[in-house]
């Protein structure tokens, strides 16, 4: 097991995760559009990556030795922007420009606009391949940064992820870690609800651990909402040698806002003032209970 994290630091990270969730809700409300379920499921992981795991300096967003991060599930951009704002890549105030004309905070991430954003994404399944390129570049240029790529389970339905998984193993890229935000919901997708025929919406078997292992990856399973466990998983993934790693993180879509949790309808949806007030109250209560 990795190094112990001080209880105070764990509390701080949990508090930051809740603050990130509040920023996500506020920003989507302000923009009148945006994704909610996915950023909320990734909140602890994004917080841990930006505040604890990655070797980054917000004052040097172009440092060639910085760790790289790619959000393959690019529609969850507001989660990433909130983490970056909290880490002071740019003022938290700027989140109010999310999705607005001329903003650096585009609906889907645009690396050409925002320093510190390492890759443009938004069309699903595309994040892992550039991650392989970055990990290969580290080796070719003798740099020891680590590349982190967050994929979604819906994102991983695209074939390109598996083209990439196949090739990454061949290069033995142990400087590359994928994080699967396994929230098991997508925009519409499959459903076990009654009323649908098997042909209509029955989900296919999903066994990411077996699949990634079969592709030659080191797998680490974890609860994606448990800050200590996730940081430990990242340390174990980074320490693993000779193979790329994937952290398979069980998460709950919409986590932290009761009426959004595990409901695919909150993948992306404008919020009413009442929705926001309820969400913020719940998140504040959780913070008070820490």
């Amino acid at each position, binding site marked *: 097991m990795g190094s112990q994290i001080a209880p105070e630091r764990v509390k701080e990270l949990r508090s930051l995760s809740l603050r990130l969730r509040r920023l996500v809700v506020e920003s989507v409300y302000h923009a009148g559009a945006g994704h909610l379920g996915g950023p909320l499921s990734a909140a602890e992981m994004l917080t841990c990556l930006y505040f604890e795991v990655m070797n980054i300096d917000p004052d040097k967003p172009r440092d060639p030795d910085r760790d790289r991060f790619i959000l393959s599930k690019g529609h969850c951009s507001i989660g990433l922007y909130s983490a970056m704002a909290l880490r002071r890549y740019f003022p938290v105030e700027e989140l109010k420009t999310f999705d607005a004309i001329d903003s650096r905070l585009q609906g889907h991430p*645009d690396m050409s606009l925002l320093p510190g954003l390492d890759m443009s994404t938004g069309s699903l399944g*595309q994040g892992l*391949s550039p991650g392989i*390129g970055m990990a290969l570049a580290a080796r070719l240029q003798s740099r020891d940064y680590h590349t982190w790529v967050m994929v979604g389970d819906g994102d991983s339905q695209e074939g390109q992820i598996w083209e*990439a998984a196949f*090739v990454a193993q*061949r290069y033995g890229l142990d400087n590359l870690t994928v994080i699967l935000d396994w929230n098991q919901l997508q925009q519409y997708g499959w459903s076990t609800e009654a009323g649908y025929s098997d042909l209509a919406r029955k989900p296919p078997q999903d066994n990411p651990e077996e699949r990634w292992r079969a592709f030659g990856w080191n797998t680490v399973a974890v609860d994606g909402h448990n800050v200590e466990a996730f940081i430990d998983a990242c340390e174990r993934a980074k320490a693993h040698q000779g193979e790329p790693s994937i952290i398979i993180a069980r998460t709950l879509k919409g986590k932290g806002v009761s009426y959004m949790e595990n409901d695919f309808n909150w993948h992306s949806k404008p919020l009413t003032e009442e929705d926001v007030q309820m969400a913020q109250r719940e998140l504040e209560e959780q913070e008070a209970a820490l």
Partner: protein
Amino acid sequence: MTLAARITNNLVAQRDVFGDTLLELIDEDPRVYVLDGDLANSTKADKISRERPEHFLEMGIAEQNMMGVAAGLASCGLIPWLSSFACFLVNRDLDQLRVVVAQPNLSVKIAGAYSGLLTGKTGKTHQEVSDIAVMRAMPNLTVLAPADGVETRLAMRAANSWEGPVYIRLTRDPHPTIFPNDYDFSIGSVVPIRDGSDVTIFATGVQTVRALEAAQQLEGEGISSHVVHVPTLKPLDEAGVIAAAERTGKVITAEDHTVIGGLGGAVAEVLGEQRPTPMKRLGIDDTFGESAANNDLLSKYGLTPEHVAATAQDLVKG
């Protein structure tokens, strides 16, 4: 200035020049890497796998991933060159090109081998005759189509030092060299290669060689043609196109590509808006190809010098 291009007996395949020039680039610029989609022994990038293996990355038959890996490498300051057939590089990874290469304007160099109809009897799936149209419509992308071996080398060198993504249209089979070795190539300029007064023939890629041959035939018929090679489809030299059209007042475009959206489309867009001129677009007439011998394909699909010459005669004589 008109460049004295002439058809020589020096037959060179652009793909051979591709392999040789990659080697040259790697030796001059250590940032250059070749990514191959399992076709290096066709595209001739295999030269790098043998002679500079540390600069060769075999990506297997997975073009979407290859394009994405290239984006990652480019984002870290390297210059990846992709080796595959034009038909796959244009179509199979088009969304990857759009999202992770063209939108962030990363310096990925895409060499589309075996473009056009002449692909070695492989037929419809392997003939790429709409790449200029597709690539030209992609913001941030520079699109080149060299005419011979000399220009292929120069275009690759220019592409390597160009900031941003470049698509280069290359062909398979040996073809006459038309340019002198000291040719001064620059991205974004049309290249007048023969002066004339009756009709202007714009051509691109290896079709320029056939256009030059057509001009020789027309001379025998008493028709003076002004031949302009267009190696850069984007950014298009609009002033050069207008000036060349004004010289004769009649325009033909010739390309081993569909008549929709390629050179003919690009020239028509410029002239239609800025200098309406009677014109005729020659190329593949909105259809797919087939597998056959080169000469049979050129004849059936209207790409021979004779076809270009006959069309010019019709246009001139009205």
